[in-house]
């Protein structure tokens, strides 16, 4: 069935008709743009697209990403400039960045991501200006939040948000995450990993996720507990995640008293420290572990 929609205006023009009307609820249909300056110039300043997790759907960032990706390939750069000029009306597209660390607007893309930008004109236009096209940046050194790749989809005049059915919350901690389906053990571990990376638990059970330089310098890491499934797996029967305190330092202190003069590389050296550490960690009610209750609630 065909459909024509005019939103929120009457036909007031007596000289030629309203041919198109965009109202609040239809704005999501509109493609993004990049605004030229008063001289018709668009300056692409590149960017540092490194290992961090990121996602963007704005035209400016995606165009910069494409520019950095295409740098050095004249044909691709020309195509990019043409796409931008056609879409924005710009007269000039300047590439104002450099691959030299000491140069202005030093720009790079992590090697794993190079070459992902579309190579045809229509696909490139869609990639840059369609807000349903997302640029994701990731790495394999850390875990993404389960919701990281969930983005709103604009379809049939509506913005369709992800339909989450379960939420993971942690007792005493403000952040949570969600799932579209009931999570299995692996998903729960990934979610906790993502939520609790860089989060510390104090002796009195307070969470500390301050990642500022000052916090990192002043934190007493020897007495702070960190989330770890490696040293103590999740207790999925009782929904408990474990935070672990540094036992190595205490083990080494204990080793110094009895074996302090032994050769560090020998049997009574660091291997002994490891043994002591393992004993400290495996003691019943070990003070090196703190359990935190988590919940998977149906939404």
């Amino acid at each position: 069935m065909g459909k024509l929609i005019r939103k929120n205006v009457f036909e007031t023009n007596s000289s030629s008709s309203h041919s198109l009307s965009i109202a609040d609820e239809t704005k999501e249909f509109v493609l993004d743009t990049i605004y030229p300056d008063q001289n018709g110039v668009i300056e692409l300043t590149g960017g540092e697209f490194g290992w961090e997790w990121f996602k963007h759907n704005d035209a400016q960032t995606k165009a910069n990403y494409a520019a950095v990706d295409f740098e050095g390939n004249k044909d691709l750069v020309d195509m990019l400039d043409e796409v931008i000029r056609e879409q924005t009306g710009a007269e000039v597209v300047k590439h104002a960045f450099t691959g030299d660390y000491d140069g202005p607007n030093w720009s790079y893309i992590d090697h794993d991501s190079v070459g992902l930008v579309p190579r045809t004109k229509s696909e490139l236009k869609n990639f840059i200006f369609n807000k349903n096209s997302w640029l994701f940046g990731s790495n394999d050194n850390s875990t993404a939040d389960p919701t990281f790749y969930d983005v709103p989809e604009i379809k049939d005049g509506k913005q369709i948000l992800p339909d989450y059915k379960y939420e993971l919350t942690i007792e005493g901690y403000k952040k949570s995450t969600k799932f579209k389906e009931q999570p299995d053990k692996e998903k729960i571990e990934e979610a906790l990993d993502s939520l609790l990376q860089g989060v510390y638990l104090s002796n009195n059970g307070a969470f500390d996720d301050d990642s500022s330089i000052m916090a990192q310098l002043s934190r007493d890491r020897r007495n702070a507990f960190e989330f770890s499934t490696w040293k103590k797996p999740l207790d999925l029967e009782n929904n408990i995640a474990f935070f672990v305190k540094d036992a190595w330092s205490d083990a080494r202190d204990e080793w110094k008293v009895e074996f302090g003069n032994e050769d560090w590389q020998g049997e009574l050296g660091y291997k002994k420290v490891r043994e002591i550490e393992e004993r400290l960690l495996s003691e019943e009610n070990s003070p090196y572990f703190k359990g935190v209750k988590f919940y998977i609630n149906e939404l």
Partner: protein
Amino acid sequence: MLIADYKNGNARVKISETGTREITFEGDLELDYPLNIDIRVSSQCAFGLNPKTGKAFCSFCHEEARTDGSECDYNALMNQLEGLPPGIELAIGGNSLTDNLVKFLAWANRRGYICNLTINQGHVQRDYAKLMDCISEGYIKGLGISYREGLAFNVPQDLLDYENTVFHVIAGIDSFVSVEALAKQGVKKILILGEKDFGFNKGNVDLSTQKHKEWLWWTRKLFDDFSAVSFDNLALEQLRVKRFFNTEAWSVFNQGEHSFYINAVEKYFAPSSRSPKKTKWIDSNVLSYFKELL
């Protein structure tokens, strides 16, 4: 709330009290009647050409309005509109809200036509009381106000607050910056018109000026500034608005042309106000003229 729900050819047309119009149809759209008709009811305007000075405040007026212009014969216009079904929109360019025009609006309202009136910003204060009466009586649904950058902005708050008020601006005649500033003055909806190479403005359109370029570069910003932004066909072309849509969205929101123009003062029909193809009333009527256009 729906104020119109009617069948037109193979289409069902629904119009709500906020002006939203939804047309649904099977196959290709085939209309028996125009969806709306643009009507000029007067050639008199205080901002038009003054024959004594040879100058016009709106020197770009494509309608070639004059300070000594005249009003149409409303009876003849009413006869022309006979036979149209309720729900059709009449877009009336009225430079002055005369008693005769008010009577015509009342007649059209009784017939179930949706009347939308556009007046010049400079006439709003003068006709304010009558405008408010016409709105409260339901004679006028949509109110167009032709913005003029050079005039003091003294539009009464009541009219700014009226949900169906739309400011008409001309891309390139009005500066982009001044139109963008209207949002801060309380304007919620705008209609962007292209600059017509017609009437007093014949031969004056130059899309390469800085003023025109700024519209081309920055129009997209207005979508964020106003609650509704509309374009006429000429503006769609001059500002290359299609670039902001994918094919699917464009097909839903681009209304196309399903209207025509009546110059009731000079008694002729034309495909649009800027078309030189004029058909005299004596040679046709509303329904047969619309069929001829298809």
